[in-house]
């Protein structure tokens, strides 16, 4: 029953990883930008939620209504003012810009908040669980995280397939030069896609913070690692692949945790390496734009 429980917890943990990976997948699938600062954007989202909780006195759900749109707007302008210019300099330039952002953000957070953990209390939600069998319980927060991750992926898929903006994003991923010939300013399309990626990253960051009870300036480094691993295991640029990749990573980590509490990170990384070697295109064959 220990193994079954670990499997269940691993699948649910995969929901969190998938949520973290989704924004990364959008940025890569549509803009072909590998956002090395993705984890730090998640951290900023968690910090903003923590600040909203402590200074405005709102609960974590209300804080999401402020944090998610705010980081969406930030993402739009980061793309317009920084990354779009970098894209004109070559493929390496945006990578270096996001690397720079990934260094600046933790240092700025240390200056502003010290290295102490900023609490993101969720009341009884963090400990509430549903007992499904002897020795197998499902935490309400992990379950909620998984449900929201699935809804987010399905919603993003529908947005890309059914809306005018979504079609523009897919067209921009195919051929932005030709999209311009259709009277569409591809810079706005790219900026909107990055805004969406930042907004989802912020949401994922808050959920990470909720799961850990708070956030520190360095959490982004681990978050971006999990997000990258989920994206690559699932298949670069594939939306549902992020969910599959997240679940594989989550299950690998929790099963390893049954053997020893020191193993989860190592085993997760080994599974990631194995997929890179044996199936470098990932386990799901579809594209974010498909």
């Amino acid at each position: 029953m220990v193994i079954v429980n670990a499997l269940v917890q691993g699948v649910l943990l995969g929901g969190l990883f998938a949520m973290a990976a989704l924004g990364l997948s959008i940025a890569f699938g549509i803009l072909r930008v590998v956002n090395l600062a993705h984890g730090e954007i998640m951290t900023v989202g968690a910090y903003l939620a923590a600040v909203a909780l402590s200074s405005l006195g709102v609960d974590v759900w209300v804080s999401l209504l402020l944090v998610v749109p705010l980081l969406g707007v930030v993402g739009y302008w980061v793309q317009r003012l920084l990354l779009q210019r970098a894209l004109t300099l070559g493929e390496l330039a945006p990578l270096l810009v996001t690397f720079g952002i990934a260094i600046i953000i933790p240092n700025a957070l240390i200056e502003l908040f010290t290295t102490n953990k900023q609490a993101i209390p969720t009341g009884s939600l963090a400990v509430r669980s549903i007992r499904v069998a002897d020795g197998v319980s499902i935490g309400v927060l992990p379950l909620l995280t998984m449900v929201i991750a699935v809804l987010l992926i399905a919603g993003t898929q529908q947005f890309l397939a059914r809306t005018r903006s979504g079609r523009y994003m897919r067209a921009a991923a195919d051929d932005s030069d030709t999209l311009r010939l259709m009277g569409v300013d591809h810079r706005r399309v790219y900026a909107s896609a990055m805004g969406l990626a930042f907004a989802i990253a912020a949401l994922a960051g808050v959920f990470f913070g909720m799961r850990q009870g708070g956030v520190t300036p360095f959490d982004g480094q681990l978050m971006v690692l999990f997000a990258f691993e989920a994206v690559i295991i699932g298949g670069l640029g594939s939306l549902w692949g992020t969910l599959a990749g997240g679940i594989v990573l989550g299950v690998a980590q929790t099963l390893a945790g049954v053997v020893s509490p020191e193993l989860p990170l190592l085993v997760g990384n080994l599974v990631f390496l194995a997929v890179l070697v044996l199936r470098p295109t990932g386990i799901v064959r579809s594209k974010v734009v498909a």
Partner: protein
Amino acid sequence: MTALLAAERIEAGYGDSRAVAGVSLAVEPGEVLALVGANGAGKSTLLRVLAGAHRPDAGRVLLHGDDVTQVRDFERNRLGVSLVPEGRRLFASLTVRDNLEIGAGSRRTGTWTVDTVVDALPMLGDLLERNASQLSGGQQQAVAIGRGLMSNPEVLLLDEVSLGLAPIVIDELYASLAAVRRGGLGIVLVEQDLERTVAVADRIACMLEGHAVLEGTPATLTRAQITDAYFGHEVASW
């Protein structure tokens, strides 16, 4: 009379290579201007300059007499200049309908809708929900032309419509061009296929090594004149 779209002494190239050297031409409303010439004559570069997709080194592009040389490609499309690029350049992961609807990105109003495009290009009728990557070359070209029309342009710039297509498919596409010519739409048609071009054009301009070397109507130009200008045997001046 002010031309619908005019190029004035356009010079353009890539790095040190000069593709277009001082070319002037104009297209009037409702007219088909065929731009012929051998591979590398500079036709496609000139078309891209007219569409705003390539910035000229010198010269001006005028739309209704207004200087639009510095107007970017997506803004020029909104002003009524639509380019159907060489190689079709469809959005491969999208359906035919999506490709057509994206063609209306400029949100210009007019008679061209998905339905009227299908009326003009009947081969698209059963393909609307099919993925663009699954189409034959001729079907892709029909989508590319339809997508170009969806912005309800005043000028349609068609680059190498027949490139790589079977003769029977080219015939069908050229037959459709007759249905496309309506409402004063000006067309600049770049082609290497002389026979078909001469058949549909109101006026012909021939380019050779970046220069415009011959211009006239099919009635006033002899086949020998066009062939000589095309291959550069005996360059006529105009």
